[in-house]
Structures are given as structure tokens and as C-alpha cells.
């Protein structure tokens, strides 16, 4: 009976992984997550990959830029605004 209450689904376990990352997981949910990870290899793998990914997210970037023509047009607009 007690154990039943401790069992969570993979859907909840993967959600708890994110809440743990932000230190928003209660102690009882932390216990439930630990128990789940002890028996579920898929969620264990999910957690490892999640922690790896979280460290990579800060490298998300873009190399987008304005063309030289667009830059010239934009600066011209600013300049004519400056003259007013």
C-alpha cells in the first residue's frame, strides 16, 4: 500500500527531473523520483541526457546579420531623423 503511493509514472518522473534541476522538487517527490530511477532504465537515460543537454543550451546562437544594403538604408533613416 505504502509502496503503491511511492510509484510514479515515467511521465511524472521526467517532469520531476526538470523540477529537480530548478530546485523546485519537494522532498517526497525527490524520494519518488529516486525510487523510479532505481527501477527504470529509460528514465535514468533521460535524466543523464537531460543534464547533458541543459549544459549545452547556453550555446544556442545565430549568425544572422543585416545585408550591407539593409544597413545603409537603416542608417540613412536614422540620419534623416537626426536632421529633423
Amino acid at each position, binding site marked *: 500500500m505504502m509502496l503503491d503511493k511511492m510509484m510514479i*509514472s515515467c511521465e*511524472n518522473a521526467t517532469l520531476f527531473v526538470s523540477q529537480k534541476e530548478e530546485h523546485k522538487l519537494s522532498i517526497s517527490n525527490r524520494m519518488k523520483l529516486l525510487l523510479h530511477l532505481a527501477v527504470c532504465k529509460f528514465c535514468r537515460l533521460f535524466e543523464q*541526457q*537531460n543534464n547533458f*543537454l541543459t549544459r549545452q543550451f547556453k550555446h*544556442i546562437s545565430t549568425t544572422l546579420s*543585416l545585408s550591407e544594403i539593409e*544597413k545603409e538604408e537603416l*542608417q540613412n533613416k536614422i540620419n534623416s531623423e537626426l536632421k529633423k
Partner: protein
Amino acid sequence: MNILEPQLWVKNYSDSLLRFAFLRTNNNEHAKDLVQETFFAGLRNVETYKGDISEKNWLFFILKNKIIDHYRKKASSLITEIDSLMERSADYFDDAGHWKESAYPKEWGRSYSDPVEKEEFYDILNKCTQKLSELIRIVFVMKYLDEKESEEICKELQITSSNYWVIIHRAKLQIRKCLEKNWISI
């Protein structure tokens, strides 16, 4: 004391402002418009510039406010997206909440603690984040690029904390699935 030099704004700041805006709107045209609006708002407010922060930070401050406005305008359509998000986890989990066989996480054939050295990984990661739906991407960017706390994100976007967790959960599931599909044994 810092001064403003609007005659150099485009040369000095347009690309960095554009990149910042693009990562947060995922739309080339919107990003360009936001950069232009930022410069014009700057021109209208030159008198309020006291020189206590750098010109660059001042322009970014204007842009950040424009982006928040941009999000607010989208708020109502984003709320409809929340409703559909609440239902769709069936892509990954069965009725009992267990992984579907088709969604079982697979080994990526690499260590999860070593840094990634290949540029290709980041290309794929960028593409995978661009594929997130609008609301998910906005929350994701606020959390991981702007490093905002969840309470602040909820307040700015006017979403509940349970909405927030569903969104973050979905972002993670989608990005890891997309990477798994496209990033084979790098």
C-alpha cells in the same frame, strides 16, 4: 560618462541586436522590425539617456522591452496553445504514463559528461529549438538564454506555474527527440 552616437548605431549594434531579437522571435522580419523600432525609440528618448549605462546596454534595454511587448501581443493566441499542450503528451507516453515503445530514449553512443567538440551538434541543436512551437520556444529561451527564474517567466507571460512545467517538460522531450533523430553518433 557615456554618450550616444546614433550615426554609428547600425554599424556598431545592428547585428548583435538582430541576433538577440531573432533568437527570441524566431522570425527574420519581426527581428528586423524590432531592431529598427529600437533605434527609433532610442532617437525619441535621447533626452532620457543619462550616460550612466553604456550606449549598448541602453539599446538592449529598449529592445528587451520591445520583445516583452511583442510577447504580450501574442498572449491570447499563446493561451490557446496551452490548452492543446495539456493534451498531446500521447506522442511520448501511454495512458498509464509509461514510455511508448516508439519513444524509448536510446543511448547516444557518447559520454554525457564530456564537452561537445563538434560544431555540427550545435547546428542541429539550433534547428531543433527553432522547431519548437512559439510558446514553448519563448519559455525555453527565457529560461535558458535569458536565465530568468520560473516565477519571473510566469509573471511576464501571465501563465500559471503548472503551465510553466508542462511547457518546460514538453520542450525537453521535443528537443531530445529531435536531437536523437538528427544527431547520429557524433
